[in-house]
């Protein structure tokens, strides 16, 4: 979709109602500018990455040796719960929403998001939601300790008092996500520049359109689910309590009806980012654009009908296991289409290995490892062995760390020079990449074998024969963590306008799309006159 762009006047030349941002904290509190809100999302997500990453390190320290090392079992459970919740809802989702805010208007030639004030609100719900969630760590009772999936009756009958704080923070995060995705979908439908047809939209925009619909469809289900929990806890209903005629297995159905589309929410925008980065550094058009669009939509749709593969061992009947096994394996088809299209894009391209491309290639290899262990998990007979073991932990970290998180890194390195006008240090970027790859694989690759050998997840202790691999994993986790400090430094430098200045509109010679027609660094207001896309 390399469209010739007719861009009458570069904004900033003669501005009549141009004004810069307000000064001080008011700028950030009251802003309705999509770029400011995108920045807020990304900064919030970066802070949360270090908070939840710190918890992950505590978990890994506890697992350095059998027996108690640092944390009591109760604290360990709270750490795994908080780590999961924050990484999913506080890191990956806000980071991807940040990209959406920054990029979608610039990519489709719109001056801003469709509903700017709503946009402000949808961000500012998040800090409050997470303050509430994190505040439970400082309360006298235990903080939520039932895993990020908060299965009933662990979270209802046996949940600590702080569960109510958890429930309301989920409500707020849910509201935030619903509003953000509402805004994104309306923007994509209504604000496209003349000539920007659906089949000309960059894949990142397509990915977010699919994700937006997924969020709108399943976030209300999550809200309903936690509301039922609240009612079970305080209003004598028994949705999930067998004593009163309810059913705890029903909780898992409701949760995973939300939860499975949720995992695609976490990865689809990442696919979009990769579909921008790989063509740029291969200096080729994306191979199979239409197939990519249909694959994205296909993954989103199939995502609604596979939830029971999370529940194979709950006594699901034979026909349900069969159906969900095949439906799950079906997901590998559109995902495979994407992976092969990226490979075909790279094929015979003139490739350079700048940091964004490194992260994209790392994603391509290691996300596929996670995808293949996903196919293994989808097989019912095999699933009975893997279920509840470290194999599952290895699987979902491969798709979430080297999947979602690596795509976010790739995106940051790719667009940060455009946003700030400063080129990051390539050396530091490469350090970040290699430390991340080595650390990540040291941490999570041994977990496959630990799981196959029978080490259960969510347990703060383990049998002595698992010690070696756990120690490797802990060392890997620290290497990974050190790598992230390079990232922090790179981002701070760029935001403080330090480093090599970039002046070209097209920061990367192979980059395509409307955002690269804007001046660098991107002015506060862009596309006040819609560009015409041919």
């Amino acid at each position: 979709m390399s469209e010739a762009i007719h861009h009458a006047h570069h904004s900033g030349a003669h501005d009549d109602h141009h004004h810069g941002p307000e000064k001080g904290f008011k700028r950030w509190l009251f802003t309705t500018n999509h770029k400011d809100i995108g920045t807020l999302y990304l900064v919030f997500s970066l802070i949360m990455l270090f908070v939840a990453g710190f918890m992950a390190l505590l978990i890994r320290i506890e697992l350095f040796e059998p027996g108690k090392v640092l944390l009591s079992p109760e604290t360990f459970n709270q750490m795994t719960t908080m780590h999961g919740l924050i990484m999913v809802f506080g890191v990956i989702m806000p980071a991807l929403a940040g990209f959406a805010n920054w990029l979608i208007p610039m990519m489709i030639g719109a001056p801003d998001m469709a509903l700017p004030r709503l946009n402000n609100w949808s961000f500012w719900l998040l800090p409050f939601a997470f303050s509430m969630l994190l505040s439970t760590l400082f309360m006298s009772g235990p903080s939520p300790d039932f895993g990020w999936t908060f299965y009933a009756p662990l979270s209802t009958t046996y949940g600590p008092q702080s569960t109510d704080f958890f429930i309301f923070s989920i409500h707020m995060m849910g509201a935030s996500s619903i509003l953000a995705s509402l805004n994104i979908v309306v923007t994509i439908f209504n604000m496209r520049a003349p000539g920007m047809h659906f089949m000309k939209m960059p894949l990142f925009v397509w990915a977010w359109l699919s994700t937006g619909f997924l969020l709108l469809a399943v976030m209300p289900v999550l809200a309903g689910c936690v509301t039922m929990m609240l009612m079970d806890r305080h209003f004598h209903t028994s949705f999930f309590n067998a004593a009163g005629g309810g059913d705890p297995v029903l909780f898992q159905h409701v949760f995973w009806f939300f939860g499975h589309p949720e995992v695609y929410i976490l990865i689809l925008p990442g696919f979009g980012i990769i579909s921008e980065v790989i063509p740029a550094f291969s200096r080729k058009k994306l191979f199979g654009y239409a197939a990519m669009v249909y694959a994205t939509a296909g993954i989103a749709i199939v995502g609604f009908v596979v939830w029971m593969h999370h529940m194979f061992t709950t006594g699901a009947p034979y026909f349900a296991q069969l159906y969900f096994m095949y439906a799950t394996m079906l997901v590998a088809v559109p995902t495979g289409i994407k992976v092969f299209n990226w490979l075909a894009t790279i094929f015979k391209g003139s490739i350079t290995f700048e940091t964004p491309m490194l992260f994209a290639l790392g994603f391509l290899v290691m996300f596929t490892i996670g995808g293949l262990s996903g196919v293994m998990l989808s097989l019912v007979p095999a699933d009975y062995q893997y279920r509840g073991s470290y194999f599952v932990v290895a699987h979902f970290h491969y798709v979430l760390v080297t999947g979602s998180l690596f795509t976010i890194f790739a995106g940051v390195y790719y667009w940060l020079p455009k946003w700030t006008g400063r080129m990051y240090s390539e050396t530091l970027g490469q350090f970040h990449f290699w430390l991340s790859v080595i650390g990540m694989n040291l941490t999570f690759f041994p977990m496959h074998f630990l799981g196959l050998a029978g080490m259960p997840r969510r347990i703060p202790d383990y049998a002595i024969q698992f010690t070696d691999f756990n120690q490797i994993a802990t060392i890997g986790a620290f290497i990974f963590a050190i790598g992230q400090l390079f990232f922090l430094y790179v981002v701070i430098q760029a935001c403080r306008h330090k480093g090599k200045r970039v002046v070209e509109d097209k920061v990367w010679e192979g980059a395509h799309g409307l955002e690269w027609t804007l001046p660098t660094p991107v002015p506060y207001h862009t596309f006040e006159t819609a560009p015409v896309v041919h």
Partner: protein
Amino acid sequence: MTTKKSHKRLTLILGCGVLFMFGFCYMLIPLYELVCKKEGINGKGASSAAVIQSGMTVDHSRVIKVDFSTSLHANLKFKFIPLERHITIHPGETKLIYFYAENQTGHEITAQAVPSITPSDAAKYLKKTQCFCFTQQYFFKKEKADMPVYFFIDPSVPKEIKEITLSYTLFDASAFPKKQARVTQGRIDL
């Protein structure tokens, strides 16, 4: 601007979609009950009365072993055991068996037994005409009783099913509203 108006329209439509999905979340519950009952899975079929079809014949050519097991939820102080651990039964034949329950909690209590049948593919063929699990059971302090289950196995049960386990978990339901007056139908108070 004409776009302003269409923003409102689309936002409204999507907002309605969100509300619908919130409602749909609650609709999942009756839907789940319905599917479970229709398919006889997850013990849902086993907690309501079945009717013996006229013309049902006993299939003397086959026997199926039925195991009974019981468990108590949480720390419920009860003695709760089947009087027979297992029986053999012909498909189509009706049997009456008793479960013994003794209230050792030291106060009166409302209990609810929740059935479960394994393998799950056999669940829809084990049918009950009467069961203590259909209703809440009230126990006075120290009360003991034998509680009945009348059941049969549908003759259409697949050939490969040779053994079925019927298990009950007894829950303390005192915190939940009483669903009916004290029922002791078929119960033998000891």
